[in-house]
């Protein structure tokens, strides 16, 4: 096992992913959930560039990473808009308090 930079970046990606998923599981504030999703996106962007680098096709990796950044920013914007609307209509951001649909 050689410690090349890519190994360490893979470690970083997995670390960010783990933190992000853990955050998704334990967070209850809607805005924070959007924020945590952004951590996951960072991890994915890093992973895409890493994959491009590892396969010797960095341009491709870069290109889709750039696209992903923009696309997921849009998702974040819509999510924030939804959160704002939830706050206006339901009066709270706590997902446990807006869990009326069950069963």
């Amino acid at each position, binding site marked *: 096992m050689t410690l090349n930079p890519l190994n360490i970046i893979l470690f970083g990606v997995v670390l960010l992913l783990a*933190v992000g998923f853990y955050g998704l*599981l334990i967070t209850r504030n809607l*805005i924070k959930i959007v924020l945590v999703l952004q951590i996951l996106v960072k991890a994915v962007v890093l992973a895409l560039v890493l994959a491009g680098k590892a396969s010797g096709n960095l341009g491709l990796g870069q290109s889709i990473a750039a696209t992903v950044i923009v696309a997921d*920013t849009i998702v974040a914007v819509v999510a924030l808009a939804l959160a704002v609307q939830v706050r206006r209509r339901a009066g709270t951001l706590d997902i*446990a308090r807006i*869990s009326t649909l069950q069963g």
Partner: protein
Amino acid sequence: MIENFYYLFLSLVAGFCAYRAMISKQLLPSALYLACVSALVSVMLYMLGAHEVAVIELSVGAGLVTVLLVYALSVIGDDTYDPTSIIPKPLAFLLVAATALLVGWMAYPLVSQPAANGEVLLANVLWKQRALDVWVQVALIFSGVMGVLGLLSEKTHPQEIHPHETQAAAEGEAIAVQIEREIHV
């Protein structure tokens, strides 16, 4: 190698910032920590040779998203309440740790022998080879704009609703109380 050390340091700090962003009870510090994560990731991207993406990540990820978050916070007010997790934390930890270890182990062979690097200019790839992606992205942005307009534009500005005022909120409250009881038992 010194490069390895840099990467390790950056990864750890990014992980730490991400952790702080996730764990912080206040939203504003969370947003700032997220910006830090973004900045650190873009440094790593830069070091990997992905200069253009690093710039985009820095401006969009660290800049725009932070601005948006702060803006949303200012619209909402100071509702930064983030109470105890619903899922037992050890369970969440186990689930995430097991998945992450498995993913890491399975993905490892990929990076064990990196290929030689063929440098290609991003602009060439993005606008020439991947032009269709860009077109779809236009559709996506349009949809997103529609979404934001549809969700937020108000013909009349109704009174903001505060907790405990609506029936749904009351129901939600009851459920939340029940969930909290279950957590503490």
